């Protein structure tokens, strides 16, 4: 639904290619990456695909401007669940099970291969940035007011909106579609979870996107996607996470490398095979 309204190019675009051979030198990054081989044979194809596309290497280059006091590891792994209960220190883990669950959900909801592919890529970016944000909080000892996982979502959303409308469109739209398609019903003690319902997360991402790119996402209120009452607060929400980023994370970002990173074309759309 959101896709239809905001990203007509998804219809024409096809397979998203990760431009791993980016200009910035990965060796400067304090981010280490690893693809752990799964023991579950059913997860092998996911593992192989991610490795082939070198998605983590691109994340590594993308995060080059970040100068951390100690290394951050981003990895894909078999977790036994969609997320890890015990997160290893300084490590962002994207679970193969999560990607499998995303792929399953997407295949139930759309038969459009291009749309499916876009949502999967967007959802992967969201998952990786969410987990990376949590690791950054940990490494930089960032003070967190509010729920930590919402904070990671807000930081992930902010990052998504800082690299132009192509990245923003892919990442935000994929994320929003995924959360919109959530099949979990929340009642009673479900709300005791430390994480927020996918439907709340949907609005948290969409709100940041709406404030960051009014041209791109500006029709969401008219289209009945973002209630006006929430929309009126989005600029404030965006300014707040931006200010928090400037105060607590920007001091660890090399401004020159950031310019290079922003000048890099991150997501290249290739014609359908």
């Amino acid at each position, binding site marked *: 639904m959101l896709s239809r309204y905001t990203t007509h190019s998804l219809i024409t675009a096809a397979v998203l290619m990760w431009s791993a051979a980016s200009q910035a030198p990965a060796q400067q990054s304090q981010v280490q990456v690893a693809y752990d081989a799964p023991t579950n044979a059913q997860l092998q194809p996911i593992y192989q695909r991610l490795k082939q596309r070198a998605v983590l290497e691109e994340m590594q280059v993308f995060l080059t401007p970040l100068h951390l006091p100690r290394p951050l590891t981003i990895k894909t792994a078999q977790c036994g669940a969609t997320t890890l209960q015990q997160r290893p220190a300084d490590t962002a883990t994207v679970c193969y099970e999560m990607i499998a669950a995303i792929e399953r959900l997407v295949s139930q909801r759309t038969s459009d291969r291009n749309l499916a592919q876009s949502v999967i890529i967007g959802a992967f970016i969201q998952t990786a940035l969410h987990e990376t944000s949590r690791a950054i909080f940990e490494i930089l000892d*960032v003070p967190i007011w509010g729920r930590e996982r919402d904070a990671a979502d807000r930081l992930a959303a902010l990052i998504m909106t800082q690299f132009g409308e192509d990245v923003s469109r892919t990442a935000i739209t994929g994320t929003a579609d995924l959360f919109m398609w959530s099949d979990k019903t929340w009642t009673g003690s479900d*709300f005791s979870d430390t994480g927020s319902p996918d439907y709340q997360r949907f609005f948290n991402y969409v709100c940041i996107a709406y404030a960051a790119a009014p041209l791109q996402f500006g029709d969401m209120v008219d289209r009945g996607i973002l209630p006006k009452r929430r929309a009126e607060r989005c600029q404030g929400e965006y300014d707040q996470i931006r200010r928090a980023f400037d105060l607590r994370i920007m001091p660890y970002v090399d401004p020159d490398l950031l310019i290079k990173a922003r000048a890099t074309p991150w997501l290249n759309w290739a014609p359908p095979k």
Partner: protein
Amino acid sequence: MNREDIRMKSILHAAVLVAAMFLPAALTNWAFAQVAPGFSNSKIVLYEKEKGDRGYWRTGLASDSKQISPERMALRERMMKRRVLEQYAEFLSPLRLPYTLLMIASDCSGSEWDSPYYDPDNHLINMCYSFIAEAEKSADLLVQLQNTQKLWTPVSRDQLFAGLFASVLLHETGHAIFDLLNVPVFGREEDAADFMAAFIPLQFGTETARTVIKGFAYYWAYSAAQGQDPKLGTPRVNPNSPEPQCRLSFCSFSDEHGSASQRMYNVICLAYGGDPVTFKDFVDAGWLPQQRAQDCTREYQLLSAAFNKTVLPFIDQEQMKKVRARTWFTAEETKEK
């Protein structure tokens, strides 16, 4: 009951309605109204509309608003007698604020559903009489329910009222602190303000902590029991409203506040994480599922670290000792049942 349900529901979202109003006069006639010696703070000011009103306005915010009803006037008298504004200013006296914080009690927009709020344009906390009237009624209702249905841990009427009122005030103070101290807020600000409302009373001993946490938890537990958590398919917007409608089936999840249940669970979890002995009965009574309870120490530590980094440097420690040595609630207000 229905009437109460509607009222309770409305309190949740009324806060912002009056925030955009202008203050009626230039901010020159600031007043300290009989703040206790040794507890004044030049940056926390009770703002008088009329000379001698001690910050308890006899009107709403609008310059043409009428004098409040005799009923509200009686409530105002009760507040003045309890020295609510003065004591709250005294309670906040250790804060070293870079900008002056104004505090008033008023009839706000004149609606019966106004709720206390922080106005960042004027650096003003406004305690709306209508909310206090509703909090009194809510406390009566909840104690009545508790007496007949035994839904929750025991609570007295005065404890419930004082705790509910204090938690709302602390929540708004959270917004004020985030704004005035330029605190980086990475999570959702509404949750963060609830976190402040939980964290502060936990630093003031068992009785104070239990009164505030119980007032907060009862209120939101009741709201949740009344079906106020978001649900699929719930229309959020009045169908007669000219505003664009939300067409998604999950629009009721769009609030920037957490849901009633989430707010209750968050605050009980922080209380239990900060003081497992004092709040053990909440977990034993099933207020918090075990799965959440086991992570509460970590959640509290995260909050404590955030407070220590971003707010503690602005607290005068000598003054804080004096504030902590004082008793802020009356004996009736900390009575458990």
